[in-house]
């Protein structure tokens, strides 16, 4: 337990009659890269919202480095060091790319260091050319990069990425995968993704969710061979 950066204990949330996340016990080690997959409605994004405090669980606990953060405010959780790239990029449309990085880095750094970080991240995500353009006018793929860069600029200890490769071309997907591996050298990550090519590029351990619960947790190879996982994805429900 001492090596875990994140742990959920019997985490559940219920919307009326639907239990969107059902008794999830999930543990992530320091510097681990975990892929989270599952069909639509499996509860992946809801789990992310619980982890970041955007939703309050109806039962269960969330521990970040052993500290209980269940029910804490979103900004307080972010301050502890959890950053998230949301499924639909959540950005400041009227502001420039540079301002995004600045705002994210400035919370924890003095002004001068912030400028250096912003420039460094711009280079890393390859957006130096559009640094002073309004984010509202960028394509979906570029917006994904801006959000990823914004999260990185805050240097959170745990990074949650919700479909980081969605809307990207093949080359961009490869570059994102490379970046994710690079981030993983220093940070723990959980990545939700539908693009199995992308998952194969980055995955070591994969958690599969189905109907709000964790179905199976294993290496990528084992997951691909797993009959139950295949049934879930193809919509077959065994037993009949």
């Amino acid at each position, binding site marked *: 337990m001492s090596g875990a950066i994140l742990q959920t204990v019997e985490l559940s949330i219920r919307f009326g009659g639907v239990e969107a996340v059902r008794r999830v016990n999930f543990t992530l080690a320091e510097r681990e890269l975990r892929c989270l997959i599952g069909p639509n409605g499996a509860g992946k994004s809801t789990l992310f919202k619980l982890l970041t405090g*955007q939703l309050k669980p109806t039962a269960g606990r969330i521990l970040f480095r052993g500290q209980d953060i269940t029910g804490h*405010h*979103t*900004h307080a959780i*972010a301050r502890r060091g959890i950053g998230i790239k949301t499924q639909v990029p959540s950005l*400041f*449309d009227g502001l420039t790319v540079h301002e995004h990085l600045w705002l994210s880095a400035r919370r924890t750094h003095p002004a001068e260091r912030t400028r250096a970080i912003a420039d460094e991240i711009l280079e890393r995500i390859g957006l130096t050319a559009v640094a002073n353009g309004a984010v509202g006018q960028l394509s979906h793929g570029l917006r994904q990069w801006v959000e990823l860069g914004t999260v990185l600029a*805050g240097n959170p200890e745990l990074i949650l990425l919700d479909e980081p490769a969605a809307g990207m071309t093949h080359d961009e997907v490869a570059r994102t995968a490379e970046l994710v591996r690079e981030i993983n050298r220093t940070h723990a990550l959980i990545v939700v993704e539908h693009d199995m090519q992308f998952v194969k590029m980055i995955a070591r351990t994969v958690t599969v969710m189905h109907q709000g619960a964790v179905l199976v947790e294993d290496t990528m190879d084992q997951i691909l061979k797993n009959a139950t996982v295949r049934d879930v994805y193809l919509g077959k429900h065994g037993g009949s």
Partner: protein
Amino acid sequence: MSGRRWRSGSVLTTVAMVLIGLGVPQVVDQFGLLQLTVFAAMCILALSLGFVWGYGGILCFGQSAFFGLGAYTYAVTAVNLGESTLATLLALVVPAVFAALLGYFMFYGRLSDVYLGVITLSVTLIFFNLMNSTAGDAYRVGKARLNGFNGMPSLPTLNVPGDPGRLLDPTETFYLVMACLVLVYVGLHVLLASHFGRVVVAIRENEARCELLGYDVRLHKLLVFTIGGGIAGLAGCLFANWGAFVSPNVFSLTMTSQIIIWVIVGGLGTLLGPIIGCLIMQYLATTLGTQQLANTSLVFGVIFLAFVLLVPRGIVPSLRRLALRA
């Protein structure tokens, strides 16, 4: 970079305001000077809402509550003390503290925009009714009779700090009000360029993202609202001092809707806009009022509708767009 261009624009505006402030008393007669003094005081009020609404994204329909509170605080304190220094200070502090209290319940209670509008409007109307019903000897604060709907006449006007016998003459008052306007304008620009100000604008753009980056949205909004309340209070103090008079009308629906119209006409999301909007509408109101050609409220309503439908961005942002295109 558009950011730098606007910064040089604001410097230009500041210089223009200083020049107008210094030059006007040389060329304008006493009546005109008094007129411009109240215009400038109202510009400060317009700036307060321009900041709270245009940058903070806080839909405050009752900015007049803080304006009126500032005016009455000045009146009551000045009558009691016979000296204006502390009265002026309190006219800033009391509305700011009140805004902080009100804001605490609204922002920490996570009220949505529509409710913010409803609550702030209700608050100013409650003040309006409350002050209207304070007629009679029973309603007094120390030496100051509140006088209900008749208002409080012959207030002590501003004096040189520490010297109650030395009152400011109209020209000095004009200088002072213009100085306050320039100070508020520059101060808000400096604030908006700071870390705090940039977060405030980011919150207007996307609250959820700010929270996810670790910024406490409630606290930032509360501070914006409080600063806006203090500035409106200062405007109220200057207004009460201008006519040496204050009545419950400072809290009225007409008053509060006027401020909104100034900001809409001039342009939301700028600081110059509310000033321009305020000047145009005040000039119109004065002209219409003296000529009795048409009902002022009716004309204001028509202008408001026309702007919302035809120039929703307001004058200043529309002109900027034109200038950028040219």
